[in-house]
């Protein structure tokens, strides 16, 4: 190993990409850099995100440690083009032939739609290594093709690689069931990748246990790195007692995805607003609508028809996050109900130091994360009545909240920073490549 270890981070979704997974990748890069590692990130080219998401997050990109070297890799995207007028000549003129050719390539390379990036990532990884010896390859997905690239780079460079599953691949976390059969190429590839990885990292204990059970050969090399608080992004959120007589302000801040329990929440909201505690109360949704532009319209329509006091306020630029939280009395955390789901935004919510309501199945790992948070109100079941009850209870708590409680909440949040969560695994990797 060189005196300064060098990690090659495969992070297609690196900022300025947007989306909840981006924070984790950014935090790995910053964490390794702060530990004194040389960090090279292979990321998708900026235009790719402009085309896919319609927007990029330059504010977030500015929070990347300046010591991190980012190499943009041109991502093949023709297979993702769904507008005929934007297609290539071959794609538009010979659609069947083109699709068959693409499928063939995918089958040969990697069983995922992003397979065409694999040779590009491997080639760039080899080029990086030729100029600056790589000590560790670290891939975080999705796309899962990056795990395939890590496997190939590990093999070609004879270096250890680690895979960080911020989203599971062969497990559907929503239905808690397998996505693929035991002989499907995805299953076979995942086994190959995990059994040969130096470490497999995931976001919560239920998921870690799933990997241990599924891949007993690698069970001792599975680790948990929970998501964390990006304190440099959120900053300190000001707090003042809620003025008596002012209608309550409740808010959701995060990507408003179609798999959130929006229906149940809005029905519960309608019930709660009939209670005196929530008279004239407002419910503001902040954030992007879905990840893909084609999902936006349906979600927007649902929110706009959400009922009295409900408004969609649009995305919040990073520098405005703390100020946005500061305008709210209670934060509503909506999550899909599954033991395997963890709320990335939950840590930011904690740092706001306000009552947080958890609208998700209590088995969800987020319940565990909030175990020591003084002002957490989780629903016993995702029903409108339960939502009403936690809304009323949390608004009461916000009106009675003291500065001491606010400081206790903040202190709890600061026990969940990305750096604190990542340090043990980063130290273990350091130890491994030194030894």
């Amino acid at each position, binding site marked *: 190993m060189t005196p300064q270890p060098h990690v090659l981070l495969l992070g297609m*979704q690196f900022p300025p*990409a947007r*989306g*909840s*997974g*981006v924070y984790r990748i950014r935090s790995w890069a910053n964490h390794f850099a702060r530990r004194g590692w040389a960090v090279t990130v292979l990321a998708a080219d900026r235009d790719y995100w402009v085309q896919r998401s319609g927007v990029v997050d330059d504010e977030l990109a500015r929070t990347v440690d300046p010591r991190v070297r980012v190499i943009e890799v041109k991502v093949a995207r023709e*297979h*993702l083009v*769904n*507008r*005929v*007028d934007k*297609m290539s*000549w071959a794609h*538009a*003129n*010979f*659609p*069947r*032939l083109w*699709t068959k050719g693409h499928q063939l390539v995918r089958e040969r390379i990697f069983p*995922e*739609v*992003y397979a065409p990036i694999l040779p590009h990532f491997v080639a760039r990884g080899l080029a990086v290594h030729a100029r600056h010896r790589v000590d560790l390859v670290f891939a975080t997905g*999705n*796309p*899962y093709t990056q795990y395939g690239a890590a496997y190939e780079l590990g093999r070609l460079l004879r270096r250890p690689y680690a895979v960080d599953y*911020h*989203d*599971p*691949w*062969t*497990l*559907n*976390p*929503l239905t808690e069931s397998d*996505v693929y059969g035991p002989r499907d190429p995805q299953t076979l590839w995942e086994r190959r990748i995990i059994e040969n990885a130096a470490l497999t990292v995931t976001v919560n204990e239920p998921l870690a246990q799933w990997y241990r059970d599924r891949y007993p050969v690698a069970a001792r090399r599975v680790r948990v790195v929970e998501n964390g608080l990006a304190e440099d992004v959120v900053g300190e959120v000001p707090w003042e007692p809620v003025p008596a007589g002012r209608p309550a302000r409740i808010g959701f801040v995060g*990507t408003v*995805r179609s*798999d959130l329990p929006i229906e149940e929440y809005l029905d519960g909201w309608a019930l709660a607003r009939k209670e005196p505690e929530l008279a004239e109360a407002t419910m503001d949704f902040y954030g992007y609508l*879905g*990840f*893909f532009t*084609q999902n936006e319209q349906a979600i927007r329509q649902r929110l706009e028809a959400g009922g009295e006091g409900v408004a969609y306020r649009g995305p919040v630029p990073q520098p405005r996050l703390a100020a946005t939280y500061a305008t709210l009395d209670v934060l509503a955390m909506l999550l*899909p109900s*599954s033991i395997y*789901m963890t709320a*990335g935004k939950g840590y930011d919510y904690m740092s706001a130091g306000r009552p947080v309501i958890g609208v998700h199945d209590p088995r969800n790992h987020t319940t565990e994360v909030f175990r020591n948070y003084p002002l957490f109100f989780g629903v016993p079941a995702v029903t409108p009545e339960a939502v009403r009850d936690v809304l009323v209870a949390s608004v009461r708590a916000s009106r009675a909240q003291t500065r001491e409680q606010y400081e206790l909440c903040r202190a709890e949040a600061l026990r969940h920073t990305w750096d604190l969560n990542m340090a043990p695994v980063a130290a273990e990797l350091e130890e491994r490549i030194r030894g």
Partner: protein
Amino acid sequence: MAEPTTSVPVPVPVTTPVPGAVRPKQGRPRVVAAAVEQARRAPVVETLNWVIENGGSAVLVTADGGDRSPGLHPAVEVVDLRADERRLGLNRIVGTTPAWSSWNGSKPYRMLRPWLLWRALRKRLPLLRLDDVDHVIIVHPNSWPIAWHLHRQHPDLGIAYEIPEAVWQRAGRPVPPRPEPPA
């Protein structure tokens, strides 16, 4: 990206919005349906009839080589490419022999056919009066070559599986209600 799915599905072709506020014009919207095979023919016929009944004009591009599609409004113009297809390249030789039907139905030919039909249509473009066309309806990937080339020639043309409201609005007309589907 971080939707809690296990993989990102391959997007299926969806509608292409008509470029907003492009080529404003008052009058009759004109629509071309590239429906070179029988797939989704009934809804296409219904859509073209709806255009005609609401004051627009419509063209159906087919390669049926037979009668007009059942139920098609008499005012819908039909451009049938079947005869031209038989006169293209190698088809000129095979097209007059008994081998034509097996060649025409073979897998390799079916892969090339959508592009060949564009080549056939290219010679008959004046029939479409492209300067007046607002929108191309596609019904299947087999429609893509024709739609793609028409758009290349007239970048203002919209391409979609349906007719966007903007087509009517640009023509200065109210958006007509869609006919109720049969019970």
